[in-house]
C-alpha cells in the first residue's frame, strides 16, 4: 500500500536581522500557504514592535516615557513584558533586557499599562523577542487550523507543535534533540567574548553553548541567554516547571 504523501509547505521571511523559516504540514496546500502568510505577517509585526532601532518600536516608546506617564499595551505586549520580568527575577538578573542599567518598569495588569520608575529606561529585547515572534506565529498557525509545524528564527530559536517530533541538531556536530510540542533555544559564545553579563557589566569570559527547552519559546530563549551568562550553577535555582537546561562547555560551531 502506498503511503499518502503529507502536504508540506515551507515559507520564510527576513526579520530581526535574521531569517525565520516555517515548515507546515497537513493540508490542503492552499490553506497552508495562507496560514504561513498570516504567520509571517505576525512575525514581521512583532519585529517592528520590538526592535530597538526604530522610533515606532516599543523599546523606543518606553525610552521616551517619563514618570508619571504610562504606555497603553496590548495583550501580547503584556505577555512578553510579564515573562521578561519573571525571567529577570528568576535568573537573579542573568537575563536582563536593560543590560544592567535597571529594568525599571511596572506593569498594570488590569488596565494593561506600563509605567517607568525613571525617565530613559533603555531596554533590548533581543534575548526574548525571537521566541515571542515564534509564539505569535504559532498561535496564528493554530488559529488557521494548522496541526503540525516547525518554526525557527535564525536557527537559534525553534518551536514545534503538533504530533510530529522534529529532529534538530544543536550547531554543526552537536547533539540531536527531539523537538515535539515545545521550543528550543540555543545561546553560544565562541572566540571573541561578545556576550555581556548584565550583573557585572563585564564580558562573559567562557566559551560555551547553552540550551534551553520549554513549552514556551520566550521562556526557553530567556533562560538560554541567562544560562550562557551565569553558567551551569543557574540550574540550581528554582526553575520554571518543565524547563530543561543543558550546558555544553565546548562551543559548537554554528
Amino acid at each position, binding site marked *: 500500500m502506498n503511503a499518502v504523501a503529507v502536504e508540506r509547505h515551507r515559507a520564510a521571511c527576513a526579520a530581526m536581522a535574521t531569517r525565520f523559516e516555517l515548515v507546515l504540514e497537513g493540508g490542503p496546500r*492552499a490553506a497552508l500557504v495562507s496560514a504561513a502568510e498570516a504567520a509571517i505577517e505576525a512575525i514581521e509585526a512583532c519585529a517592528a514592535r520590538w526592535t530597538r532601532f526604530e*522610533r*515606532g518600536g516599543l523599546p523606543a516608546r518606553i525610552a521616551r516615557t517619563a514618570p508619571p*506617564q504610562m*504606555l*497603553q499595551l496590548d495583550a501580547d505586549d503584556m505577555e512578553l513584558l510579564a515573562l521578561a520580568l519573571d525571567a529577570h527575577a528568576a535568573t537573579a538578573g542573568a537575563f536582563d533586557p536593560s543590560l544592567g542599567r535597571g529594568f525599571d518598569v511596572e506593569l498594570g495588569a488590569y488596565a494593561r499599562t506600563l509605567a517607568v520608575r525613571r525617565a530613559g529606561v533603555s531596554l533590548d529585547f533581543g534575548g526574548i523577542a525571537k521566541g515571542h515572534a515564534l509564539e505569535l506565529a504559532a498561535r496564528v498557525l493554530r488559529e*488557521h487550523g494548522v496541526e503540525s509545524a516547525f518554526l525557527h528564527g535564525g536557527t537559534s530559536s525553534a518551536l514545534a507543535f503538533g504530533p510530529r517530533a522534529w529532529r534538530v541538531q544543536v550547531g554543526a556536530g552537536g547533539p540531536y534533540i527531539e523537538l515535539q510540542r515545545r521550543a528550543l533555544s540555543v545561546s553560544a559564545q565562541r572566540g571573541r567574548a561578545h556576550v555581556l553579563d548584565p550583573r557585572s557589566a563585564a564580558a562573559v569570559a567562557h566559551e560555551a553553548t547553552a540550551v534551553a527547552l520549554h513549552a514556551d519559546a520566550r521562556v526557553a530563549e530567556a533562560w538560554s541567554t541567562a544560562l550562557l551568562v551565569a553558567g551551569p550553577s543557574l540550574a540550581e535555582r528554582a526553575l520554571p516547571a518543565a524547563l530543561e537546561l543543558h550546558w555544553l562547555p565546548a562551543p559548537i560551531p554554528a
Partner: protein
Amino acid sequence: MNPTARREFLVASAATVGAFALSSELDPLAALPRRAAPLEVGLVGCGRQGRAILAELSKMKDVAVVALADPIESRAQAAARRAAGARTYKGHAELLAGEKSLAAVFVATPTHLHRAPAVDALAAGKHVWCESPLASTADDARAIAAAARAASVVGAVGMQGRSNPIYSLARSFHKAGALRELASLRAQAHKKTSWRFQPAQGESDAAANWRLDPAVSLGLEGEWFCQQADVYHWYLNEYPTRVRGAGSVRLHKDGRTIADSVALELEFASGLHLAWSGTLANSYEGTYESLCGEMATLRLAWNAGWMFKEADSPTQGWEVYANREQFHDEQGITLIADATKLAAQNKLKEGIGLPEPPLYYTLADFVAAIGAGKPPACGIEEGLRAALVAQACHRAVTTGEAVALDPEAFKR
C-alpha cells in the same frame, strides 16, 4: 456591565492611569483637551483591517470602542477580545439600532460593502471614517459622498498619506520649491503574498477572498494603488486625465483572474506622467512613491522618507545637521517630522521613522477632527476622487484600453 456603568468605569480608569505617553509633537490628539467622557465609537467589519484599526484605537486616550459588528460570530468575538466590554452585533443596522449614543462609526468591511454601513451611519448622524478605497463602484462612492454632504458630521476616508507627519513634511518641501520643476513620478507596491485568506469559522471562501473576485474587486489598483494615487493628488493638486494599464497573473496561477502583477500609467493635465507597478509576486523595495524634480527627488515609503538632492541644488543651512542614509551610490537626507526640536536636543537620530504606524495617524486625525470641529485630512469628497481614479485604473487593466477621466468629475 451596563453602558452607563462602563462609561463611568472608563472615566475612572482614565483618571487613575494619569498621562499616557505618546509622541505629542506628532500626535493630532495631543492638543485636544481631555474629554469628560470617552468618545464612544463602533466598528463595522472585524476582519484583518478591522482588527488593525482596533489595535490603533486602543492607544488613544478618550476613545472607547463600545460596539462591534460582523456577520461572522467568531470574528466579532475575536475583535471583542481586543475591545474589552464592547457589545457585538450581526450587522451595522443592528449596531446603529442598539447604540443610539454612539458618536462615530469606523467602516472596515470589504470595499464593495462600504456603501450601506457608511450611508446608514451618516444618515443616523454618526461621524464616519471609511477605509480606502471609498467604494468599488462610482455609484456607491457617489452615494456615500451624497450622504456625507447631507449630514452635519465629520466624514473621512482613510487615505493615510494626508495625515502622515513625514508626508506632510515632504509636501512642505515640495510646496516650498525644493524640487523645482517636476519631471518624473514613479511608485510601486510590491509584496510577495498570495492574497488568499483562509475563511473564518462560518465564512465562505468567496467572502474571505473577495479581493480575488472579479465581480466585486478593484484588484491591486483599488486595494493598494488608491492610497498612493491620493498622495499624488494631494502633492500635485491635480487629478489624472487619462490612465492606461496592463496586468496578468504571473505567480499565483491558482485559477484566479484578478491580476497579481499590474503596471499603470497615469497622465496629468500638466503633462506629468506617473508610472506605477504593483505585484504580489515580489517584495523588492516594497511600497514607495517618488517625485523627481529638477533640484531634488522625494522618496516616500510610509514610515520613512528621504530627499535626494541634485548636485547643482543649493544647500540650505539646516542640511548641515541633517541625518543622511546611503542607498547604493546615492545619499538621501532623512525626512524627520519633528527634526527642529530633536536637533535642538541632539536627538535627531531618535526621530527617524514614525512613532506610530501610518494607520494610527489617519484614525487620530479623524478623532481630532471630531473633537476640534474641523475637517479631516481626507474628507469623503477627496476619497470619492481617489476611488474614481482607482476604478478607472481597474477598468484600464481589465479592458486593456486607455480610460479618459472627465475633469468635471473631480470638481466640487
